[in-house]
């Protein structure tokens, strides 16, 4: 129950949510909801892990995982952008499809045991800073450091660059963006695929940086859905995504560590005495997402914040908006 250890572990596991939620932020900013995150993460996880089992090269695993995520997201893009199908149903079937393919590919992988993980360097100088150093810069996986870089880059890209302006325009008012010469279809394809790439990377983070091994659907275990909830909590902002992701990671570690000590706050620890009670602990992240949505929706109403205006609507060139 050392807070430094809990927070450091929170940053590690939070990186999974971070990549997945950042990817969803990009897709939704372009106006496309992709509910297939869970499926794309499973694909990334299984593709990355099986690559490492076959070749022993975790870097190649990361690459294959990202490509697997892109391949799945491309399906969603074709069906929702070109064929203008319902984004909700398409995303759900993407999760189903990804889960199925991952199970097929993962057949026999659970016996593969553990493999080499990506390196876990300690950053000189920065790791010397009290509190911050041991949490963020000591023996974290390379992918965790990639996560630190991805957040400001994503923020800068969306808010300060020309392509980012096009992205926001397409998500808010595709007709106006089109009339100004932005190729709405191409922008949406690009960012849905970027979302798939990051979801695949999130899956690879699980199997190549945190927990080498394949445990079927439990490998991802609902984290794709939590990531989608985080995007709403974060009001589609990369910086708030980062805060939420690390916080959820830390909570995940806390509910695991809380089962250890014999006493909690001077009382006998109920979670150690009655094992079945730990199932209620396991509910915490899911209940938290609901609470965040409840309070987030009130805040959004108060501040008049909202989702991208064209979110969930297919764009049909030459037709008036819906």
């Amino acid at each position, binding site marked *: 129950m050392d807070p430094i250890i809990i927070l450091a572990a929170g940053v590690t596991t939070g990186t999974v949510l971070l990549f997945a939620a950042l990817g969803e932020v990009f897709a939704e900013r372009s106006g496309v909801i992709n509910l297939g995150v869970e499926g794309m993460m499973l694909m990334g996880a299984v593709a990355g892990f099986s690559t490492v089992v076959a070749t022993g090269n975790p870097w190649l695993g990361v690459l294959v995982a990202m490509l697997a995520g892109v391949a799945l997201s491309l399906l969603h893009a074709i069906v929702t952008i070109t064929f203008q199908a*319902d984004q909700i149903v398409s995303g759900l079937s993407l999760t189903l499809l990804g889960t199925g393919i991952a*199970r*097929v590919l993962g057949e026999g992988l659970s016996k593969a045991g553990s493999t080499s993980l990506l390196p876990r360097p300690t950053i000189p100088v920065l790791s010397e800073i009290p509190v911050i150093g041991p949490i963020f810069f000591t023996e974290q996986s390379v992918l965790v450091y990639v996560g630190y870089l991805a957040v400001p880059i994503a923020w800068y890209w969306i808010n300060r660059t020309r392509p980012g302006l096009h992205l926001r325009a397409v998500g808010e008012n595709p007709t106006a963006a089109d009339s100004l010469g932005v190729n709405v279809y191409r922008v949406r394809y690009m960012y849905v695929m970027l979302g798939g790439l990051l979801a695949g990377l999130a899956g690879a983070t699980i199997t190549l940086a945190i927990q080498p091994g394949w445990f079927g659907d439990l490998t991802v275990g609902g984290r794709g859905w939590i990531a989608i909830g985080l995007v709403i909590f974060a009001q589609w902002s990369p910086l708030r995504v980062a805060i939420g992701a690390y916080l959820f990671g830390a909570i995940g570690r806390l509910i695991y560590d809380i089962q250890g000590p014999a006493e909690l706050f001077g009382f006998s620890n109920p979670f150690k005495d009655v094992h079945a009670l730990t199932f209620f602990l396991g509910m915490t992240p899911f209940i938290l997402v609901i609470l965040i949505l409840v309070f987030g929706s009130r805040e959004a109403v108060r501040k008049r914040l909202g989702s991208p205006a064209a979110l969930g609507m297919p764009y049909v060139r030459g037709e008036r908006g819906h």
Partner: protein
Amino acid sequence: MSASQVPLAPPPRARRMPYTVSLERRLEAPRRSWLITLVAVLVALVISGLMIALVGGDPIRSYVHIVGAAFGSPGVISDTLVKATPLILAGLACALAFRMRLWNIGVEGQYLMGAWGATAVVMVPLVPADAPAPVVLAAMAVAGFLSGAIWGSIPGLLKAYLKVNEIIVTLMLNYIALLFIQYWVFGPWSEGGFQMTRQFPRTAWLPRLSDFADSVPAFGGLTVHAGFLVALLAATIVWLVVRRSRWGFVIQLVGDSPNAARYAGVNIKRDIVLVFMASGGLAGLAGMSEVAGAVHRLQDTSPGYGFTAIIVAYLARFNPLGVVVAAILFAALILAGREIQPSGIPAMVQGIVLFCVIASDVLRRYSVRVQRAA
């Protein structure tokens, strides 16, 4: 909407091709739209066959095996109907909510809570242990329906009064419901440390065809139970409600055009909660029928009926009677799929089928027009 010509995106390179392909918005729905769905399913089966071949299976043999294992004899037809029973009820739950464009993805959790409520009647017990079977079963059905309806009312209330996204809430409630079930079957209701309850007494079993084998020998070994009749009855009632009742018209209106409904004085908030509760109740009834009719105990595993039900509802185009047909087809796929290796193939095929069906939607809204380039 005028019949405007809409190029496929990205726009075709007209110069290089002797013909251009464009989509023309249909003025009215095509008459034989179920044919489009049928073709989409066939295309999906071909794609799935290619995928099966790719991972080293034999698609033709797999499909022949599925048909044989699901419809080959009265015994397996009965097994298929047993599997179809929870899918019909859960599919109706989805169809009802989706009609109003309420994305109740939480049918899985509502199903689990219904199974829990029905189990509580036996395990607590809520009725005297020596009560006659009709009393026990009626209490289980009511408890199952109510548990599902209450679980379904949570996203309904949050959506109606706080505008909270129902997709995320229902998904989170699925995981919470599963953990809740696990607490009961690992803890208070555990049978000797195994993650399941003890087997229910015979008074809590829905009657099966094989129970009547004494008078009709042909029924021997047939496990199809009264839950199937309940499911057919529920499909008829839901069909009457959505197609023939005033309320059915109102929820369709709210789904298609919320503003028009609001101007017409519809109490949308109340209807959102009611539809969610009815949907959750049907899902709960599915859970009850499964524990009382097929499993006869509560286990910690989730069979995923709630997710398959989404596809069933979509394939049936939210038509309650179509749900029955689609549910039986998917039950066959699940049943036969159990023996197919690798085990992920049925889920993969389901995903491909759903994808092809939603992609085919474009053909319901647009007609394809091929023209000679100018």
